[in-house]
């Protein structure tokens, strides 16, 4: 059994240690967001956050993430209660087929967590490992900028319930 922290919860999985994290997330933990795109780390559609860093789950074996904290797109919110990154992508309608989008969002989330004021050039550079085939790039960039704004606004606002 391998113990992982996934979206804030401790999970135990029984898979071979060489199994890429992608399949553990999809098959063992029944999470949908991380996608198989190439299995080679070339397209970014499998991206999740491991200990605060964006990671390509298709080339990250389970044994390397034992005991570490993993966040997938499911950990950012729900359709009913979307987090800022999700809200921004909905508001910008930043998807066509959307298959690449979960990975894009996780990369952007990792960037903004470390650098809330990321410039356009920094966002583009961060997203360089990610491929989108529908050509939604312009909207993806706008959505990441919007997410940064939403996150800044949320951290500037007084906490809920504060006097």
């Amino acid at each position, binding site marked *: 059994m391998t113990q992982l922290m996934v979206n804030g919860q401790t999970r135990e999985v029984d*898979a*071979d240690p060489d*199994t*890429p994290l992608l*399949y553990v997330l*999809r*098959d063992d933990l*029944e*999470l*949908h*967001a991380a*996608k*198989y*795109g*190439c*299995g*080679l780390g*070339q*397209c970014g*559609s499998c991206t999740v956050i491991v200990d605060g860093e964006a990671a390509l789950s298709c080339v990250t074996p389970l044994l390397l993430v034992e005991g570490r904290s993993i966040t*997938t*797109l*499911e950990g*950012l*919110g*729900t*359709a009913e209660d*979307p987090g800022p990154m*999700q809200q921004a*992508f*909905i508001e910008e*309608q*930043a*998807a*066509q*087929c*959307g*298959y*690449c*989008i*979960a990975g894009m*969002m996780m990369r952007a989330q990792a960037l903004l967590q470390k650098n809330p004021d990321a410039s356009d050039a920094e966002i*583009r*550079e961060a*997203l*360089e490992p*990610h*491929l*989108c*085939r*529908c*050509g*939604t*790039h*312009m*909207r993806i*960039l706008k959505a990441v900028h919007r997410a940064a704004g939403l996150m800044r606004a949320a951290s500037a606002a007084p906490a809920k319930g504060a006097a």
Partner: protein
Amino acid sequence: MTAPITISRRSALQGAGALIVSFSLARAGFAQGASETPEGKAAPHLPGSLAVDPHLDAWIRIDADGSATVFTGKAELGQGIKTALIQVAAEELDLPPARITMITADTGRTANEGYTAGSHSMQDSGTAIRNAAAQVRELLIAEAGKRLNLPAGQLKAENGAVIAPDGGRLGYGDLVGALDLHVAAAEISTLRDPKSFKILGTPMRRVDIPAKVTGGAAYVQDMRLPGMLHARVVRPPSYGATLKQVDMAAVEAMPGVARVIRDGNFLAVVARREYQAIKAMRTLAAAAEWQEDAHLPQQGDLAAFIMGMPSKDYKILDQHGEAGAAVLSLEVTYTRPYMLHGSIGPSCAVAHSEDGAVTVCTHTQGVYPDRAAIAELLRLPPDRVRLIHVQGSGCYGHNGADDAAGDAALIASKMPGTPVRLQWMREQENAWEPFGPAMVTKARAALDASGRIVDWNYAVWSNTHLTRPGPAGTLLAGQHIAEPFPVPEPKPIPLPEGGGDRNAIPIYTLPNAEVMHHFLPDMPLRVSALRSLGAYMNVFSIESFMGELAAAANVDPVAFRLNHLDDPRARDVVTLAAERFGWDGRPKSQDGRGCGFAFARYKNLAAFCAIAMEIETERETGRIRVRRAVAAVDSGQIANPDGLRNQIEGGILQSASWTQYESVSFDTARITSIDWATYPILRFHAVPDSVEVHLIDRPGLPFLGAGEAAQGPAAAALANAVADATGQRMRDLPLTAAKLKAAIGV
């Protein structure tokens, strides 16, 4: 449409968590869609796809709670069609969009609308749904009139109810009980006046996006059925290779492996877990010994090879008239390579065989044609096979979706009772999908002293752009099994839509013009429909050539086009794109920067699209980057302006990728562009600073498909901008950095 339906894809896909779909395969003849058993023959003069199935309840049903269920035979491919069709129905029914459930392509439930392709969905299905919804609304009003003893003229439909002059309301749900909607549509509908549209033509958020951005079960890749196993295929190393021998015993003993399948040259593994299936696939692939027989053309000499292939020749335009004396003529050749659809998510399908019937969840563009292929493959009657469209990764034409559905169905048929999920690997998708065909065009034209074109001569050499299912021989599984099915003879797609000759006939007013289509039946590489088919290459060629001619005539390229363009809607998009771009005051070509312009009407019958583009080039590397693009589009009546913008933006970016980077590579036997390193596409460093899309709405005019309108113009605008920036005319796609560096580099 009376069969009991046990699979509710919508509710399943909208549910949180694991997607559980009950495959209870309707022993009651689930496949008897209304379209297959209409009492009356469909009437060809009915609008849109009503001609395929004239029954109103094949398109619209009103539920007892007053909500509506709307059926389309078209599929959501990420292009937003589901949302646009909800808007169409909501407008004519006068019902809030949230109260409409849209059921998409499913041979058990929806009409046979063929393929979701060719930018036809709004024309075909949008028109059918609009008319059917309007007629249902009028029937509801008439029913209310009967109950209230009032003439229909005094009643109006509003927000899901019929309203009487005294303000009394009768909800649709109350009215529908007495109505029979299983009636044939009338030829003429009372359509809403576009001036009063409340929903159609306004931006609506896409209904499929929330699940996609929150990790919902949005794709066929995300389906998880009870007891489902994971399958992988092992494909031959090259076209036509035959399996000499394979030791399956070692694979069968691997952990989790449930089954190893060999049927002729068709090899597959089925395992409990997905990664176990992948490991078993690799071991099986290593154990297989193949006899390879493929002889692919020399890639370096592809154009000459294509022009030397046997051809069937069609003269598709031959017009002659009075013209000025020629003072100048140009003749040039353009080429394009084989290109990938290159879906980001490799093709996938989930199939289940039970009680002699097979259900396949697939991201095919054509559930009915693919059902025909799979039924023949499995040697089952079509009514024992049901295909349900579930979204996949964007396909952009005939990619591996149909083949994966065939693979999954074949594997499932050998394991009755067990649902099987099959996904291709990246290298399988890249090597085995049917490519967009390589093409060559030749253009020759003469100008008179005033800079007008007096003679135009154009020829295009191309394979077919259509090898879709149909027959079982169109599927890889059908070709690879021990008793294979024959591959059907390729045929050209007839004009006016055309295949290789799509958009080969110029839209410009030309006194003398001849256009030849050299159709090439031999297909050394597997090819089929890639988004916009031949239009991408023909528009690239014609619009590059217009740029070359304008330069030769020393006339501004926008003015040169307008001088040859009579269609007022065409002139409008050209003028608007030029205005919004600031064409007349555009930056001069210097420091490697330049501007280009191009225009086309897709298929000469769908949306109009003009694009102006500013680019920068890097002398040291030959690298090109689009700085900004401005498009103007007329697609008739607009359903969802934001959806339309998204399609055009995407078309421009996708075309920028095709045009700058993309080319399938191969050696004498094998496809070698099997991943994203060997088949590079656009990445963020090359994404433009801005892309603007300006829409011209034509309220009340027919819907014109726009999903493929931008690709051709974007390619030519880019090539024209490169010529402006560097003085180098690049005629061989893709316009790679290496080629430009060789032309201009230091």
